[in-house]
């Protein structure tokens, strides 16, 4: 395949960025999108130019590092995938592809397509944990039975990879799907109950402080989430917050 790529280039967080056109040839439909980017970068390095910076690591859809906005969609046109799992068979020979960083005030650009998502970490610092001593002197794991349904639903929420696609795709740059997933995991398990009220209040407060917008129930986050995190988690978070506030 031969492709034209329109890529956002930005030297650093302080510089102004712009779209730059590149051509790549000999792209196999079996390549992942990131492997296609590798081809472009090898080409750039060989001609002495700086390669396009983009975040990526595990390349099997689980680390949540890759974060491109492709043709106007977070992680590109396929559903239920991260960019590293997006394959070139989703595109046609001769296509022009627009590639931008995830855009949100709370995710400043570091360089080119790489953005700073440490706001997610700070939300977690504010309460995304259970306060148990890491001493190994905890009670036997089977001493509190957890229904299969509760464990499975908690697991569904816990599969969030923190990629930020929900924020990138939301017209309000809301982080509610991410925070909802975290709150839900702990809200569904007996271990998380003791601190439940403080947890949800602190996490929501930090989320607002970081500059994420509010949720207006558009549902774009759920559509773009590579792990299929459901809007139910947002509803659960709101319920938890309500419960904590009265």
């Amino acid at each position, binding site marked *: 395949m031969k492709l034209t790529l329109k890529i956002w280039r930005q030297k650093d967080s302080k510089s102004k960025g712009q779209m730059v056109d590149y051509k790549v040839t000999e792209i196999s439909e079996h390549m992942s999108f990131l492997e296609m980017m590798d081809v472009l970068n090898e080409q750039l*390095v060989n001609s002495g130019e700086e390669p396009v910076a983009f975040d990526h690591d*595990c390349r099997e859809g689980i680390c949540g590092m890759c974060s491109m906005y492709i043709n106007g969609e977070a992680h590109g046109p*396929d559903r239920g995938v991260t960019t590293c799992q997006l*394959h070139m068979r989703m595109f046609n020979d001769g296509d022009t592809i627009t590639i931008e960083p995830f855009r949100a005030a709370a995710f400043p650009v570091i360089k080119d397509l790489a953005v700073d998502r440490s706001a997610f970490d700070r939300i977690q610092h504010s309460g*995304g944990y259970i306060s148990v001593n890491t001493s190994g002197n905890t*009670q036997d794991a089977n001493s*509190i039975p957890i229904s299969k349904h509760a464990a499975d639903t908690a697991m569904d929420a816990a599969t969030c990879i923190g990629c930020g696609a929900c924020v990138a795709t939301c017209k309000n740059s809301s982080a509610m799907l991410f925070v909802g997933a975290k709150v839900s995991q*702990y809200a569904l398990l007996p*271990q998380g109950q003791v601190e439940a009220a403080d947890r949800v209040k602190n996490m929501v407060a930090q989320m607002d402080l970081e500059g994420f917008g509010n949720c207006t129930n558009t549902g774009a986050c759920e559509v773009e989430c590579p792990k299929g995190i459901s809007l139910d988690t947002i509803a659960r978070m709101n319920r938890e917050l309500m419960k904590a506030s009265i």
Partner: protein
Amino acid sequence: MALDSKVPKGPIKDKWTTYKDQINLVNPANKRHIDVIVVGTGLAGGSAAATLAELGYNVKAFAYQDSPRRAHSIAAQGGINAAKNYQGDGDSTYRLFYDTVKGGDYRSREANVYRLAEVSSNIIDQCVAQGVPFARDYGGLLDNRSFGGVLVSRTFYAKGQTGQQLLLGAYSAMNRQIARGKIEMFNRHEMLDVVIVDGKARGIIARDLVTGEIERHSAHAVVVASGGYGNVYFLSTNAMGSNVTASWKIHKKGAYFANPCYTQIHPTCIPRSGDYQSKLTLMSESLRNDGRIWVPKHLKDVEAIKAGTLKPTQLKEEDRDYFLERRYPAFGNLVPRDVASRAAKERCDAGYGVNATGEAVYLDFAASFERYGKEQAKIHNLVNPTEAKIKELGQEIVKAKYGNLFQMYEKIIDQNPYETPMMIYPAVHYTMGGIWVDYNLMTTIPGCYAIGEANFSDHGANRLGASALMQGLADGYFVLPYTIGDYLADDIRTGKISTETPEFEAAEKSVKDSIDFFINNKGTRSVDYYHKKLGKIMWDKCGMSRNAEGLKEAIEEISALRKDFWQNVSVPGGDKQFNEELAKAGRVADFLELGELFAKDALVREESAGGHFREEHQTPEGEAKRLKEFQFVSAWEYKGEPKDAVLHKEPLKYENIEVKERSYK
């Protein structure tokens, strides 16, 4: 220096308890005067950082990713072992210890493995308390499954994302300590050297990967938890950034590097499809619980499948060769990874590989769909269900167990594995070799520790499934926090370590010089060019099977490639910026040295053990042949060029397990 493993005396089942009773402790009030650096925040580093902070030490943690939550431990799928015997199928601490030592081909240290088995059940309790959503059965109790090389069901799991959930558990424990100010987290930072003061590790030199600034960080002890070095092969299942740099830098400053040639080749990976491929994708070994592995019995059927005139589903049962069940009836498809990998390679080398490159065997779930489907039909009281209904019911069960893996496979290969068998092939996965450590997990540099995949001690020549997560968390939550106190007890009066000393000065200068070299060497070849070349030499000559001649060639070729690298490598951009090519250049430079030591180690080890199969040493049936005189750890001392490295041997004594021929027949 003679190697002292410091294994405590006494019966194996009492060693750890007695040892804990006798080591020096640091008063809680004194812990806050002591700083510890942890490099890497995966399962081992993350759990260690959280626990050390919980105990009261001041922790500085470093990760090259933007968040500890991205560490490659997150990609582990299948599960974590623990000797809980919840299933009542005969599991015990001894049996987990036994399986691990045997699975490691009797090349791991008995006392360390026993301790690992002993603390394994604490790990599950700890993680459940932290809110890790392990799979539960309908009674609300924890569910288990079985993995290769064992005859009990002791593997705890969270769908196919166990590593993710355990890592997020450790990460949440870290978050709690970050919020308390007990962990200072340095994201997007890479350790580039260790600083030794008066013979002790007292700090590191790190580079801020965003600004390019070189920073000095001091501490009373340094813990390296930077994972494995499988990326020396270029293609592996490791994350793209996984590297050997932290381990290699401490090796160059005096830490011995043990068993570098012990690499695990994992049997259930998605096959390579072309030269552009950047990495390989692993699918959990747990798939072998329900999948049957086969290739066609006849070469004509192989040709027909490759040509597309015959579908694998059309091939009759009697025309299929279920080679693992045929060769190893007792363990069948659940033989350990080294055995399964070699058996697949043997069939593919003989021409029976089923994809275009000839490097794939089938992993078939049809029998499971039927078996589970019939069971479900009975449970639901369905009278005379159709074949299609049975298949559908069975597929639902398999989907619940491995749905995410099936989806991942379909995304990559573009084939529906519910309808046609998956194709798999072995790939480089985990490295059992690593920094040599004693029973305290301390390296040969006083005050410098290595934990998790970065050390060598627990897995021997081969690693059983679901035991890497166990080791990472055991080291981080339960072992290091005790053993490090024994060392730090002498440091309660030391006070803050200054970074304004000649040692820090010198270490910083050498780091800066190397970076200046890369920026100013206007060469002609990219870093990836060298990495790929190195990877090919490693796979061809130091891969699943090796021989003396190939290894000698590899040593020469890697040495020549390294020379070429230092002349002709090209790194665009500057140093005071986010420059991934520059970071990669440093990592590949270290791989180019490690690769040669790897080949040298493989050459010395004139036997076959685990992932290390020397063609000269096999039984008439083609099984690995171990030799008693190689029952030792090879620990290499750095002396400049890898060819000058000096070998030290730690003899391995087996007092609690009789060393037997490892057979899975």
